[in-house]
């Protein structure tokens, strides 16, 4: 009799724990804004901006020999240097939300942010 009750309690406790764990894992996955670095239509790098703790940068080489330097800081991303003729991508400055992706047309490079919390499917501009 007591045995049965213990089993039920144990089972219920395990169920609650399991539920809490899976909820934590699932909600953690879609926590913050993720920046995608897309070269000629291919995502070459994904950066969860909410998990960046220190500034860093990297260089993206384009197939035709050009290059863009991408600078990453907590919560934001930009192209800090580029050898394209117009430098529109550098002038665009920091990107923090889904609004206007950074585009370097000459090097076919895009940095766009996908934020699951923003609740929009696309932005008209």
């Amino acid at each position: 009799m007591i045995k049965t009750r213990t089993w039920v309690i144990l089972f219920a406790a395990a169920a609650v724990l399991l539920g809490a764990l899976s909820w934590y894992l699932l909600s953690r996955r879609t926590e913050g804004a993720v920046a995608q670095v897309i070269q000629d239509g291919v995502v070459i790098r994904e950066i969860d901006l909410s998990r960046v703790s220190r500034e860093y940068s990297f260089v993206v080489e384009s197939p035709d020999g050009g290059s863009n330097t991408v600078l990453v800081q907590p919560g934001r991303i930009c192209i800090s240097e580029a050898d394209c003729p117009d430098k529109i991508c550098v002038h665009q400055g920091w990107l923090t939300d889904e609004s206007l992706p950074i585009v370097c047309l000459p090097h076919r490079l895009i940095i766009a942010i996908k934020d699951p919390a923003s609740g929009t499917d696309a932005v008209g501009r």
Partner: protein
Amino acid sequence: MLQKRKKSTLLCALLAAVLLAGCGGGVSPEPEEQSADFFAMDTYMSLRIYGGDEGLARRCQTLVSELENELSVVKETSAVYQLNHTGSAALSDTGADLLSRTLALCAETGGALDISVYPIVRAWGFTDAAADDASRVPSPEAVQALLEHVDYRRVRLEGNDVSLPEGMEIDLGAVAKGYAGELLAADLRSAGVESALLALGGNIQAVGSRPDGTPWRIGVQSPDKDGLLGVLSVSDLAVVTSGGYERYFTDADGNVWWHIMDPATGYPARNGLISVTVIGESGLTCDALSTALFIMGPDRAVSYWRSHGSFDMLLATDDGRLLLTPGAASLFEPEENLSYRVEVIEP
């Protein structure tokens, strides 16, 4: 004892059912997603298609590049390039359909939209990526001389054959993306697709609704660059925005000039609007009107809507107002703490 055991078994089964239901998610199967992200028509395009045959996304990309190959003003093999450089060309059926409908829109908007304004756009350096900002503003004499060749009414289209008078050049860039969206949407619908979102460089064309049946949520870019004006919930509609905030330059005296030219003056249109969003069934009409209404300014834009209807719009004015048609207001959810004063236009 037996009773108790039965009870606990039942309890276990119930708990297991609850847990499994939590993990399994919805019951209806999601249609398969296919996507294509690519550069075309001088912008970045992103297509998301739910359901339908494999290879549809690829086919859409091909359709866009075919259209671009015909309409490009810089590709030497394009029909429009040949037209601009020799004065005549033969268009495909699609190209002729686009041109005849666009010329009709030029007329309907009283020439606010004029595809022959291209030489002026070029004189202002908007076609040259390396133009020097300090010396880009053309002289009033140069603008005046070019204006003499701006008049869409002198474009002759007979069947698929088009010709231009001496000195005139056209560019369908103001309508090509909207038309492409409309074309792709029709193609996808005839292929049985009930849900797709086509973002052609900020021109949005929605096919049906989201796969879960709720409307697509389309953000409207704020002309102040930071964030959104709000969100539109749409199904089976095109949403096209024109603004001066994306392509502009600052001259040596600090004046800001943007790329939307007023065909009446040959100067960038500065008539009280900083952003225009048009919502409607035809991507081509939305694209054409977003440019034309921007050039008209708020008063003419409102009277154009009152007399023509069949579309909805959001107008952001340079004095901080956001004017919405009642139809747009019913789809629109403004951002919190929006700095614009929202006003609904009376029909």
